[in-house]
């Protein structure tokens, strides 16, 4: 009996914490259906007559479709490129173990240890010189470069977890290395590919600084648009911020919801995989 009560309390506590974490998100979603006056009123209106006026306003703004399309194109393409490169690199590092593998792996990850603000200037200069500013390929390659290290770390863990006996069985039976990589190893590290995809996708999706600095009107993604549009004559346009944010967070929420089990596997870097 006592055990049941403590478990119920425990569950209640978990729910409470989850709700607290969700509250800001909930506030944003609610706010997107309010008028400006309702939104700024204190205390908060929990019950009100919802309006779609904010959504109508959002989708009537010039270029909004372009910005959304940019966000989707840039993040999906960048992350796909990153994962292809990272998967092949992970396979090579895992199987051929070239000298200095550990050092290279560390150096790669160190790209992500430097605060973004520190690498802004060199990258800005580089992109100016190359004339890559505000170009789709430039933007996509930048985010691909930024997504490779972490993907590589996740995927190397997964490939390491797949016994080399699988490769050898394939090779001895006459398979090419290409066949081994894509038909034998790849299907076994699919959770890792999905986890790496989601982690990096969420990162690129929400990235602001570099898109603001080396992007431009052809490559603007939603976070930059959000900031440029949020100030109007009378200060911060809160209903706009709430509406834009609500729309923008739907795709990642759906993706994470449907692939959450892979996300967990990804966080353990594949180390829980057993051999079959």
């Amino acid at each position, binding site marked *: 009996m006592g055990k049941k009560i403590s478990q119920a309390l425990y569950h209640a506590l978990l729910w409470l914490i989850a709700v607290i974490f969700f509250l800001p998100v909930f506030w944003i979603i609610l706010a997107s259906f309010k008028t400006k006056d309702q939104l700024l009123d204190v205390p908060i209106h929990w019950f009100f007559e919802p309006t779609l006026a904010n959504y109508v306003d959002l989708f009537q703004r010039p270029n909004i479709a372009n910005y959304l399309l940019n966000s989707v194109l840039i993040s999906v393409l960048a992350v796909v490129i990153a994962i292809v490169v990272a998967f092949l690199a992970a396979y090579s590092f895992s199987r051929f173990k070239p000298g200095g593998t550990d050092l290279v792996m560390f150096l790669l990850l160190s790209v992500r240890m430097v605060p973004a603000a520190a690498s802004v200037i060199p990258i800005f200069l580089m992109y100016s010189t190359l004339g890559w500013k505000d170009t789709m390929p430039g933007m996509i390659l930048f985010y691909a470069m930024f997504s490779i290290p972490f993907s590589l770390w996740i995927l190397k863990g997964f490939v390491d977890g797949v*016994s080399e*006996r*699988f490769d050898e069985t394939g090779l001895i*039976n*006459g398979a090419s290395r290409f066949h081994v990589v894509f038909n034998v190893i790849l*299907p076994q590290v699919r959770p890792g590919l999905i986890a790496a995809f989601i982690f990096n996708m969420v990162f690129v999706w929400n990235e602001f600084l570099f898109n603001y600095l080396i992007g431009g009107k052809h490559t603007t993604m939603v976070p930059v648009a959000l900031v440029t549009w949020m100030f109007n004559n009378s200060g911060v346009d809160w209903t706009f911020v709430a509406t834009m944010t609500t729309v923008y967070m739907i795709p990642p929420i759906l993706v994470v919801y449907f692939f959450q089990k892979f996300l967990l596997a990804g966080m353990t870097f594949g180390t829980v995989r057993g051999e*079959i």
Partner: protein
Amino acid sequence: MTDVIEFRNVSKSYHNHAVIKNFNLKIQADSFSVILGAPGSGKSVLLRILTGLEKPNIGEIYLRGVPAESLSPGERNIGYIPQSFALYPHYKIYDNIAYPLALSGASKKEIDQVVQRTAEMLRITKLLNKTPDQLSGGEKQRVAIARGIAKQTDIFVFDDPLTGLDFKLREQLFDDLKNLQDTLKATFVYISSDALEALILARQIGILYDGTCVESGDLVSVYNTPSNSHTMEMLGFPKSNVVPGKLMKKDGKDFCQTDIFSFPVRLDQPATDTVSVGFRPQNVILNAPAGQALLSASAKILLKEDLGGELVVHLSIGDHKITSVVRQDHLGDLGEESTKIGLDPSNALVFESTSGRRIGQGA
């Protein structure tokens, strides 16, 4: 008989550490050959060299009479059964078994015939539609064997495939493997670290010790007259007894003196004085009757292990530990604490200590 596989002076080292040292071995066509070696003696490396996954630093492999150096693992056309099953988790059992055939571009009909026949041989027909994670260890091993032998070839390589399975399963698989080899009429090369397994399976045997093949040949003759002390120690169950000894002359005759017995020897070749004397537990007689031409000594009984029909008795004589195996019905009245052991001198084999080669035996 023709040799289908030949290792010629093969050496392989990693980071200046020699793993395989001047390894020579010929394997006859259609034989069941076991390469027996202790864990860490280089067995797996040898297999990797044979299958082409690694290249030797020195030496050559001949496959079906042709140098294999330039052949890729796939081109060597060897059926492979790995130690760790390595069944593809994303394939059904059927497709796992079909894998080597599918890779070689066989037709669907051909594949189906071979898979069904192979599955029948290994009694796994009812598993064909399952996935590897639904199988027990023994079933997985059967499937791995099926995948290996589904390949249409004449050489099959088994990398210690029964380690980690329980004994009853292993016994069943021993029978299966022997039957398979009879049916397929192919060369089976089986790597093992277990003497009992080697004794049960092998017709031909090679003894791998410290990276070299110290002895090879027909199992029965290698077992009965090992020409190397490592063979004596490794090939036998339970392990053979080995005691150090010294050669000397007595009245112009060769004698061997050990802490347990001393006996006249017939030397086949000249040798240094320091020797080791090996004799099998099966040849150690307990309750030895007096007055026969047996070497004898008093021993303390340390432990008796009852194996049902047989009794393994662990004894000590001075500082030496001796093992004896006797049939229960031959046991007679064995005391609790001590007994007298006997050994026919012709069963005492004398090996030179430095080289390990057999130089003679008791006379």
